[in-house]
């Protein structure tokens, strides 16, 4: 066998191997989904979504967990979005020179890798105890905000960085101040990507369990929260609770709730991918 053939063979072997590797990931994903769907799908109906929690698996629903999750996620968004964008813009547009910005940058890289359970401890002590917010929606949202902040900041920075410098220069050349350039040119041009990062951050927040357990999300909440100071529960906690009960019926409930949660995550990720693709296609400099 000559060398070229040998190389070609290696090349093709690797290709097959790589496809196998890719499939491993996808197969596990498939098994996981199949596993859950086969158990939980039949349990999903309108009652399941609108019922209050109950000790009877057949009667129990995810209404309050769903609403709690929506509350927490919305509030988390409202808190982390402006702060994250502000910080990202600062680091990319203002802070390039100064030492403090470098320090912040290292710091963000660090925070991005801090285990979520540590954020839980922080949230419990800082928001729950020190600011006396207890285990309210607000305390949880603040905790999750800190958790997703690094993700949003990094996404914002990438998005802002991707805006061609020529646009900044054009605006500056016309006599725009720095903030005018940022608010009128840079942010509108990068908004799509920022949004994408945002959604990915949210989809992370949606699935977080450990920090909320530590902050003290409740389990039995038989009413829809009405204010940020209300107590709440969220889907992952409801799932965690259900999986630890003795009755088989709750295992089914948990699977059904997982399906709903995954649906949430998929939709969010889908939107993010869609936005990313559309943005990439639309804006070409």
């Amino acid at each position, binding site marked *: 066998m000559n060398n070229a053939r040998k190389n070609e063979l290696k090349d093709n072997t690797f290709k097959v191997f*790589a496809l196998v590797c890719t499939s*491993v990931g996808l197969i596990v994903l498939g098994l996981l989904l199949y596993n859950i769907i086969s158990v939980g799908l039949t349990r999903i109906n309108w009652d399941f979504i609108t019922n209050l929690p109950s000790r009877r698996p057949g009667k129990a629903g995810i209404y309050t967990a769903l609403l709690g999750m929506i509350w927490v996620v919305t509030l988390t968004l409202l808190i982390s979005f402006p702060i994250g964008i502000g910080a990202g813009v600062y680091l990319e547009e203002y802070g390039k020179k100064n030492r403090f910005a470098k320090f912040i940058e290292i710091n963000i890289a660090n925070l991005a890798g801090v285990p979520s359970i540590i954020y839980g*401890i922080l949230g419990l002590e800082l928001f729950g105890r020190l600011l006396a917010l207890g285990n309210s929606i607000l305390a949880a949202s603040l905790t999750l905000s800190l958790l997703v902040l690094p993700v949003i900041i990094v996404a914002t920075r990438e998005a802002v960085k991707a805006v061609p410098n020529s646009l900044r220069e054009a605006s500056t050349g016309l006599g725009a101040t720095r903030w005018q350039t940022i608010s009128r040119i840079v942010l509108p041009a990068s908004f799509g990507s920022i949004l994408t990062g945002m959604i990915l951050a949210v989809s992370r927040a949606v699935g977080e369990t450990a920090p909320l357990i530590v902050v003290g999300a409740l389990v039995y909440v038989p009413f829809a929260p009405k204010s940020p100071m209300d107590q709440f529960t969220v889907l992952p906690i409801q799932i965690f609770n259900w999986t630890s009960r003795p009755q088989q019926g709750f295992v089914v409930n948990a699977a059904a709730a997982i399906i709903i949660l995954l649906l949430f995550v998929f939709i969010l990720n889908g939107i993010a991918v869609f936005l990313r693709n559309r943005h990439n296609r639309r804006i070409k400099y």
Partner: protein
Amino acid sequence: MQKIKEKIIEGILFFCSSITVLTTLGIIIILTIETFQFFKDVSIVEFFTGTEWTPLFANKKFGILPLVSGTLLTTLIAILVALPLGLTIAIYLNEYADKRFKAFIKPLLEILAAIPTVVYGFFALTFITPILQTFIPSLGGFNALSAGLVMGVMIIPYVSSMSEDALSAVPNSLREAAYGMGSTRLQTAFKVMLPAASSGVIVSVILAISRAIGETMIVAVAAGQEPKLTFNPLNSVETITTYIVQVSMGDVPQNSIEFRSIFAAGITLFGLTFILNNISFWMKRKFQQKYE
């Protein structure tokens, strides 16, 4: 007037970024205050060198090593899964797959990282462990292996997506040069692209490791909660994170030394990831300079 407005805005934005520093400070302060109390009762030397961790037993021993070994063992298994798989996938997507396939597969794999980890935990316990037991009869119901494997699958996208990004960031001119010389795709990938993207790839792996170290729910559910100084993957182990949730949810009386032990464990965890994150940040810096 305008100048003042600009200054105020800059101030506000500056404050936004300072919040991240405050967060770090908050974490460190909260962890150290309680840890400080903890080390009034427990010797630091015992903490870092002791081989038994039994704060909740009548005979209390505070050697963190079993938790650390449990953490490292599960992480190691996870990386042994995620590194070859993730890297191969990254190379495949970057060098072999056509654009549409890549645009489809990459987000699909990223779903793996988006699935709530509670779900993985039960998947490992009720699905993977029984399967493994048919091959390894001596495998216990809880073991580091099954938790580590599933965790490895979970972090595949960290390696595959980020490494792929790093490979994509290598100037196309290098790839063209390689092909122009008559390299096969495999040669281009391994002899040119991978070395050129090496620091980016290392960063992705380190982040994946730090993610695995911090992972809680999978190991809490599937690895058993037995603090054991072992590197045998067939054993059940306990990780630092598991210990923290366990105590957070349990019966431990407040202000007790048991309760404080979670802060000491927490700071160990923070320290571990802190070191890794700094290494990765430093690598990234180096890497960015090279191609600008």
